[in-house]
């Protein structure tokens, strides 16, 4: 059995388990936790297109979540448009904003770029918090918008149980991962990696680095906005602090960094490792030791950056390969593909 076949087989098993879980796991609480887990994994994977592949550090991505959430919610509340359509509208809006932000900021050096994205993210949040009505559109400032749980049905992106939401976010996650996989093996992926690592050399080899980054940004912002709509339809209440906050932007970025940005599995791995820690410490220690999960988070962040700056996926992948070597024999090492490390 070649290593590739083993990996494919493992993937199929994981797929079966993950898709079959709701049939076995009946508890809405656990489903809820898993849904949020996938939600974060989706967000970090979308972020990864810019923050990982393009090699920059965007720290204002929650703005796109907000745009998606508000777009679909306003359109459905005020104009009765299906949130599915609103989702696409939100995505397009986010793409436009993303490109507008990208144009001037991609020229900047790393530290300045990070600050600029923070300023944009916070700027957008502050504006939304201050606007009650934008022309005919009701935005409601800091109080946010509530979606009444009437009109259950697929067309309205509204469901009674958790299962449909589980499958929607799971499909979205698989979609993003597949997209990332294909991009990493494509011309765009090569160009993004090259441009992120050595922009001067890349340019001399025919890479329009700025353009590649903008394409990545466009995709990333579109996909991130879709998650905003999901969140709105899932929690039925959105307000600036929940969908556009700086904390959220930071969390997305750092989960990806701890897991390993630029890789495909990294962001998911990061979410897998950190979200349970976060949930666990909040549930069990929330009252007695508030903020514990952030202390853990901060410590993990520091330790990972000191010892494994390329993220935990590197040592984990090595361990995985060594394990398979032990079980199946052979040297899996040689087959660590060069294309998208």
């Amino acid at each position: 059995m070649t290593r590739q076949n083993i990996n494919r087989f493992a993937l199929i098993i994981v797929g079966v388990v993950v898709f079959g879980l709701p049939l076995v796991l009946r508890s809405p609480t656990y489903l809820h936790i898993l849904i949020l887990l996938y939600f974060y994994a989706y967000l970090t994977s979308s972020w990864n297109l810019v923050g990982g592949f393009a090699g920059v550090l965007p720290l204002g991505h929650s703005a796109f979540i907000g745009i998606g959430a508000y777009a679909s919610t306003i359109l459905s509340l005020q104009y009765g448009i299906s949130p599915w359509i609103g989702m696409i509208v939100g995505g397009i809006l986010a793409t436009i904003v993303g490109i507008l932000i990208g144009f001037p900021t991609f020229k900047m050096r790393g530290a300045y770029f990070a600050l600029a994205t923070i300023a944009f993210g916070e700027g957008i949040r502050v504006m939304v918090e201050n606007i009650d009505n934008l022309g005919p559109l009701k935005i409601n400032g800091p109080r946010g918008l509530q979606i009444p749980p009437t009109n259950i049905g697929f067309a309205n992106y509204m469901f009674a149980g958790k299962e449909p939401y589980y499958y929607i976010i799971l499909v979205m996650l698989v979609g993003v991962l597949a997209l990332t996989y294909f991009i990493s093996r494509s011309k765009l992926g090569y160009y993004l990696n090259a441009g992120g690592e050595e922009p001067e050399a890349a340019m001399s080899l025919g890479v329009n680095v700025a353009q590649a980054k903008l394409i990545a940004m466009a995709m990333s912002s579109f996909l991130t906005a879709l998650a905003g709509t999901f969140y709105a339809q899932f929690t039925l209440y959105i307000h600036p602090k929940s969908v556009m906050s700086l904390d959220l932007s930071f969390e997305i970025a750092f989960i990806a960094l701890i897991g390993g940005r630029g890789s495909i599995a990294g962001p998911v791995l990061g979410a897998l490792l950190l979200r349970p820690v976060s949930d666990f410490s909040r549930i069990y220690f929330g009252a007695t030791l508030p903020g514990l999960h952030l202390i853990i988070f901060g410590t993990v962040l520091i330790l990972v950056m000191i010892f494994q700056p390329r993220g935990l996926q590197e040592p984990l992948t090595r361990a995985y390969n060594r394990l398979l070597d032990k079980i199946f024999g052979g040297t899996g090492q040689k087959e660590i593909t060069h294309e998208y490390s």
Partner: protein
Amino acid sequence: MIYILEDAINGVLMGSIYGLTALGLTLIFGVLKVINFAHGSLLMVGMYAAYWSIILTGMHPYVALIIVAPVMYLFGYYLQDIVIKPIFKAQKDVREPITVIIVTTGVWYILDNLTLLIFGPAYRNIQDNPLKGKMLEIGEMFISVPKLWGFVTAVITAAAVYWFLQKTRMGRAIRATSLDREAASLMGINQFKVYNVAFGIGTATAGIAAVTLVPFNNIFPSVGVLFDIKGFIIVVLGGLGSIGGAILGGIIIGLIESIAPQFMTATWTEAIVYGLFLVVLFVKPSGLFGVKYDW
């Protein structure tokens, strides 16, 4: 009209304190080329240190400087030495290591939440300190006395740091390292010692700023966050590594914050500050007084 003048003066005073808080940031940013996201947290730590010093001994707030400044210096020095230096060593060839930014964010999370854990979320303030609520009457205007003290402290501190950088050997070493760290180390300057000292001084100034704030500001675990972001805006505005720029940048922000609310809501003021920040970033990223670094 007189109210605008009053607001303006108070705004300048407060702004100078903002500048003081940003002083350490610009030094660290200028020398280490790193965004220290933990700066607000360091300020917060300074405020708690000042608070407890004053409460436990009943001393005049500004006497706390004697305790807070050195303590903060050491805190910053060893923070850099133990936590941040390893990253620098690992990424020696990268000019502005992004991982350091991430590590400082980790420090921020830890400091803020450890404080939350230990001291609880309660807002504290020093109720009966000699400066609280005191106003100076000039004509028809009321000028805040604690802010006036802050202004004087800010100017003195800025001058002292400037003098240190220009006239002392270590100061020159710091400036050399900020211009070209490889060349400086080739000249026999111990890069990492310089970083430690710069970080120490930066943190010490945050401590001084904390002391000026404690007489009139509330003290709580996340108080640093507001100053953090404002600090970065000021640093970019004034120019990386420029002492005078930091104070001036702070004054500009202070002025905007005090005058703009006359004409619009306070939160739109926030939006203006961010907008100004973005404009500066795009138009003149080196700021008012910054040198155009080739990085």
